């Protein structure tokens, strides 16, 4: 271990500091605060010099792996390259210096951009209106489900408390539905990996609020019977929710709105090249069909007759609104389709989303333009099929049809060696590739889910294929090297079970 790889607390030396505060020129002092508000101990912060901090974090950052350092075929995550011009635009002082509480009259340009991005996303997806407020994909799911719930409630249809989720869905789908207070009903996949229409039919009745679908689904397969599914669900009075996690292969080619979906969310950090923030800022805009537009959350950007943009906060703006009716809902007496904001499903974020992320997505769309945006999907699909076909004689391919942007292997073709998917994933790290998604979807016991995205060259794909074939050969010639992998990373194979059973969460507990 290198010296500066130590924890920052281990580099600490009492009294060392990397700052100098000005002398307190004010007469007041913290000691005037009531004793009950003062902490009794000095906070246990590391005491280090500026150089210690720089070296420690520079070394840490070099242990990291990102799209900028190598191929990252993480299935279902669309780890495409994030063009640097996105960063340049987002860093422009005119944008970066905005404050969310500035009066609307001083941010007309930013509000116009917000509306333009929403319009571009409407064009791409075939939805009537968008909110850009949600901070992440799962936040978008919750928002979309709240819109669906609000729609049913506004019609007095209170029985619709159940939502159908396929067994291949992302785990966030049932989780978001549960948070929204809906009961989850599972529908099975058939042998071809698609939603089983015959299994779906008996589930449809007047208690169904809707169905959540991902298309192409988690196996990278296009749900070919989507029109029939849409008709069946609509017939029973339910709505269709589209999880946009897998929008990348369809962008500019097929529109969820045309397939019959009523609500969708997009992951800007997947399809629209904004950073996967390692838990940092994301964005999950939600689009809806025209009949649901009035239920989108607030705050939302509205345009006055003279072209001025303003922010609707949910309180009724209609002339008929009674004095003091307040925000949200039926108190003002408006109809469910009133668009002033009063029929909104509520407020799901403090301000209007992660504006810096929205800027990056807007830049991406404009840089590609209408023609090039149509190239994204086909290239992503070509790359995925190229890898799939090049490796299917070494890895078990449970569903051998043409895939979209990603596909799933079920471990090695020769499983007699005892080498598992986890071993393969760990061994890939030794060769400088990020591991694919593993053990998801749950339909297969040794799932390896590979998504190359459209931004990789054929040479990179060939390099990955060669290493995967090499690992398949190693599984037979030297299985031990796989079972003990990785060997070249800053930390070796972790004991994930003990970490889960007895987690050590604080430095002091180590």
């Amino acid at each position: 271990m290198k010296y500066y790889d130590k924890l920052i607390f281990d580099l600490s030396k009492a009294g060392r500091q990397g700052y100098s505060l000005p002398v307190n020129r004010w007469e007041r002092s913290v000691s005037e605060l009531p004793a009950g508000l003062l902490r009794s101990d000095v906070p246990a912060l590391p005491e280090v010099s500026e150089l210690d901090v720089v070296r420690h974090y520079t070394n840490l950052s070099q242990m990291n792996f990102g799209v900028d350092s190598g191929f990252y075929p993480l299935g279902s995550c669309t780890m495409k390259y994030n063009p640097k011009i996105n960063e340049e635009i987002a860093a422009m002082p005119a944008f970066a210096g905005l404050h969310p509480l500035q009066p609307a009259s001083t941010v007309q340009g930013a509000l116009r951009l917000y509306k333009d991005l929403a319009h571009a996303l409407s064009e791409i997806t075939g939805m009537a209106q968008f909110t850009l407020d949600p901070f992440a994909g799962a936040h978008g799911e919750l928002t979309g489900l709240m819109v669906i719930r609000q729609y049913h409630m506004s019609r007095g249809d209170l029985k619709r408390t159940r939502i159908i989720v396929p067994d291949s869905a992302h785990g966030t789908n049932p989780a978001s539905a549960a948070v929204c207070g809906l009961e989850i009903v599972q529908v099975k996949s058939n042998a071809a990996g698609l939603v089983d229409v015959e299994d779906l039919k008996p589930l449809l009745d007047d208690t169904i609020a809707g169905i959540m679908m991902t298309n192409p689904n988690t196996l990278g397969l296009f749900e070919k019977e989507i029109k029939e599914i849409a008709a069946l669900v609509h017939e029973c009075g339910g709505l269709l929710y589209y999880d946009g996690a897998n929008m990348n292969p369809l962008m500019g080619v097929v529109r969820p709105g045309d397939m019959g979906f009523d609500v969708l969310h997009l992951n800007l950090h997947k399809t629209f090249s904004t950073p996967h923030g390692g838990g940092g800022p994301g964005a999950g805009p939600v689009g809806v069909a025209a009949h649901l537009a009035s239920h989108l959350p607030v705050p939302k950007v509205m345009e006055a007759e003279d072209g001025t943009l303003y922010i609707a906060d949910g309180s009724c703006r209609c002339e008929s609104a009674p004095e003091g009716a307040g925000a949200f809902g039926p108190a003002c007496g408006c109809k469910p389709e009133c668009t002033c904001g009063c029929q909104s499903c509520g407020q799901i974020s403090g301000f209007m989303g992660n504006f810096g992320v929205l800027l990056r997505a807007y830049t991406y769309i404009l840089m590609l333009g209408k023609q090039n945006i149509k190239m994204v999907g086909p290239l992503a699909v070509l790359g995925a099929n190229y890898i799939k076909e090049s490796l299917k004689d070494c890895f078990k391919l449970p569903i051998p049809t043409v895939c979209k942007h990603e596909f799933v292997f079920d471990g090695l073709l020769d499983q007699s060696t005892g080498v598992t998917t986890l071993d393969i994933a760990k061994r890939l790290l030794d060769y400088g590739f990020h591991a694919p998604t593993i053990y998801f979807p749950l339909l297969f016991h040794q799932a390896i889910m590979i998504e190359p995205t459209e931004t990789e060259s054929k040479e990179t794909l060939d390099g990955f294929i060669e290493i995967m074939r090499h690992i398949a050969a190693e599984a037979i010639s030297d299985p031990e090297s796989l079972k003990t992998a990785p060997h070249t990373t800053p930390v070796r194979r972790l004991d994930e079970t003990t970490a889960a059973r007895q987690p050590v969460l604080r430095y002091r507990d180590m």
Partner: protein
Amino acid sequence: MAKTVEGLYYSESHEWVKVEGNVAIVGITDFAQHAMGDLSYVDMPEVDDELEKGEEFGAVESVKAASDLYSPVTGTVVEINEELEDAPELLNQDAFANWIMKVEMSDPSELETLMDAAAYEAMCANE
């Protein structure tokens, strides 16, 4: 092939049932613990919970995945295996020796809808 135990009842969602009088002792099968991998947590019901057959009564979590548990019978929970709270690995060590809950059955005829060991093994062979 994962092992089974003769004389128990088995559900499609991989629970086993051992009958003692009117009480159903419920656990997960060896096939299930093997598919899950090293378990890190067992979410259990509370005593006196009323369960319908097929209703979710808890979950098992491993590093790989989380999986819901479904009650194979209708009845009232009379006891849970508190040992599993601190030692979920017991299910990995011996899935049949370590039960999860005991249910006072309200309709023992439901047992007829469950599988015997041979039928369960045949089902697992197709998974």
